């Protein structure tokens, strides 16, 4: 203690010297004392970015002295760089999070700010502004680890024109068998049935995830996640892998899908070169942004149906896989960052974002903003969800999650049997 106190002035002097030196470099450009709020995101749709920039500009005009800086990292780069970034002095003040095991791990390491107190101040005023399920999903051991932002669900989107051309009716696809039949019919008509992003791997893990959910239901997955019972070697999970292999045998994806990135995959669907895509709730917007002509498929031409049920499976068709996204705040963030996040996710702004088809809001009272019928359908499906499961690769944490992604690609491309895949995931889980 005494030593520390004695050192304190020394440190202060050194710091001020450093600051003076820095000031020399930075110079007059930052003459006024502004609080910079660094916001790290991975949004690529221009209209969505514009919306954020507008919201930030409005906030800045109402709060002088706050400068909100949007920083972008591409999806894969974002995931890879974050661990290092979080421990550096250059950490963003808040960043996009998919929740789940990854967020939990980040929270456990002390890199993040515990938001419980801030959210529960004034009789939980802030916390109560959100859908309780969203807050719950971002809470670990009673501590709120991120500010809820949006919810979403993965489902099939299809090109109505191509379906009609091949004579496939989306209403008829109720079970996995129906789905396989539709794939065969489309293929018979000379149409690429599904756009798949095997290069990025995770786009294909949605198939395995949903099949596991449909076959095994919540208890099987929870057991596997917690390494209880048979874990990932549960017969239901192996059966899911076998069904995925069955799909792969039909060669349902575009040529070269094993090298395709997710933006390429969305572009393929947007260009009308594949009939279906298993994708996020805001696919209408992203397929447009990634299409060759920047227009993509017209809204009227896109249909949507939930991932089919599996006959005899324990899961219900109303179980949903999807995101619960939030903004994780790093521990050195200034109070302005929290204040801005509260502003960004208030009902008014969430309604605005919902109105352009960007999000399914989590702020209470913002749902009526959804204008896009596809987004509306996603919101309705979520509202009626019997079990909402976070993305497997996020929920299981970085190391096991990535193995699930690997295994999904290997199984669907016929390189690995369902048993081998399950064994590999289980091995990774046991190593945790």
């Amino acid at each position: 203690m005494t030593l520390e106190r004695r050192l304190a002035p020394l440190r202060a002097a050194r710091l001020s010297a450093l600051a003076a030196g820095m000031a020399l470099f930075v110079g007059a450009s930052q003459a006024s004392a502004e609080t910079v709020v660094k916001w790290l995101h991975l949004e690529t749709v221009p209209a969505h970015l514009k919306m954020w920039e507008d919201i930030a500009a409005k906030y800045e005009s109402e709060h002088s002295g706050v400068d909100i800086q949007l920083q972008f990292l591409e999806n894969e780069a974002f995931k890879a760089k974050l661990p290092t970034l979080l421990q550096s002095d250059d950490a963003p003040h808040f960043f996009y999070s998919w929740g789940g095991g990854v967020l939990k791990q980040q929270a456990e390491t002390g890199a993040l700010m515990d938001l419980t107190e801030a959210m529960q101040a004034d009789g939980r005023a802030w916390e109560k502004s959100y859908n309780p399920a969203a807050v719950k999903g971002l809470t670990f051991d009673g501590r709120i680890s991120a500010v809820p932002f949006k919810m979403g669900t993965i489902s099939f989107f299809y090109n109505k024109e191509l379906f009609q051309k091949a004579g496939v009716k989306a209403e008829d696809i109720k079970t996995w068998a129906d789905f396989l039949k539709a794939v065969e019919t489309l293929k018979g008509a000379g149409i690429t049935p599904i756009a798949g992003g095997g290069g990025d791997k995770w786009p294909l893990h949605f198939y395995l995830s949903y099949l596991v959910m449909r076959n095994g239901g919540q208890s099987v997955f929870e057991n596997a996640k917690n390494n209880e019972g048979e874990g990932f070697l549960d017969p239901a999970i192996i059966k899911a892998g076998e069904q995925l292999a069955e799909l792969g045998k039909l060669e349902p994806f575009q040529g070269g899908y094993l090298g395709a990135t997710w933006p390429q995959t969305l572009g393929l669907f947007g260009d009308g070169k594949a009939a279906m895509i298993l994708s996020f709730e805001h696919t209408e917007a992203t397929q447009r942004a990634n299409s060759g002509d920047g227009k993509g498929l017209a809204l009227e031409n896109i249909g949507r149906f939930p991932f089919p049920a599996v006959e005899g499976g324990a899961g219900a068709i109303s179980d949903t896989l999807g995101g619960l996204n939030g903004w994780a705040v790093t521990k050195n963030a200034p109070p302005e960052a929290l204040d801005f996040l509260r502003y960004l996710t208030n009902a008014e702004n969430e309604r605005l974002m919902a109105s352009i088809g960007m999000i399914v809001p989590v702020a209470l009272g913002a749902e009526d903003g959804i204008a896009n019928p596809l987004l509306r359908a996603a919101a309705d499906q979520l509202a009626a969800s019997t079990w909402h499961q976070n993305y497997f690769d996020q929920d299981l944490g970085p190391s096991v999650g990535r193995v699930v992604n690997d295994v999904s690609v290997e199984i669907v491309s016929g390189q690995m049997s369902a048993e081998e895949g399950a064994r590999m995931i289980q091995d990774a889980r046991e190593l945790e």
Partner: protein
Amino acid sequence: MTDMTATMAAVPATARRKQVRYKSPTVRGRLPVLILFLPPALLLFTLFVILPMGEAAWYSLYRWNGYGLPEHFVGFRNFEVLFNNAAFSQALINNGLIILVSVLLQVPLALWLAMMLAHRIAGVVAFRLIFFLPYVLADVAAGLIWRFVYDGDYGLVAALAGFFGAATPYVLADRGLAIYAVLAVIIWKYFGFHMMLFIAGLQAVDRSVLEAAEIDGATGWQKFRYVTLPLLGSTVRLSVFFAVIGSLQLFDLVMPLTGGGPSNSTQTMVTFLYTYGVTRMQVGLGSAVGVVLFVICVTLAFGYKRIFMRHD
């Protein structure tokens, strides 16, 4: 470092004798220079080379996700996992393949081109520039360009295949083909560098020796085999050395091309390190790869220098 001792050993004997005679004043004269110039280099070397290596060796004994301090000691477990991993074996095989192709195809190609471009003929500078251009290009940019070239829907390869009426190959998405596609890009990217080394070497070859050979009636091949090549020996050995070390560290070209896929078929040791160590937050395992890579590099580098570059 070995270079320095080698050059110092090569100082003519007379100079050495002088050094011995005036030993103490020289040392006294050198001391300020040493004190002035050694610390910065030594500090930087220690800080950015020795220290990280030591750290990697330490981390490789832990199971650690990169947050906080490594606490979960696992001994040599990470190495065990590593050598049982099929993707890592594939990476080792690929690295070997890259070395082979670099040494057996790339270096001879560069030498052949250099032989043609070392003479002073019209337009030679333009050709040198063109061949050297890929090397100047950033690795990631080159990777992205070739990703487009290989693209099965819009790429050059697809257009060529379409022209000949063949089925469009998706080269980078094919487990069997992807590595060869990557190898082709590697040769394209780096042969210019080796060519430049050879041109510099060839320009140092004494013309009169070649003329003498000509007068003796040597054919073109004989001149190359018995005069040029022996005189170029040190350059060839250096070129091979660079090719081997460069091959072992290959990373930024592969990432934009395939990212190590499909099914890990184009993984190299460093892309493996990145994929399994960094993106999965298994710093311990990643460090173990780093240690293995370091040992291989050091063994090869010193072994090669000892055996082949002894006299250079």
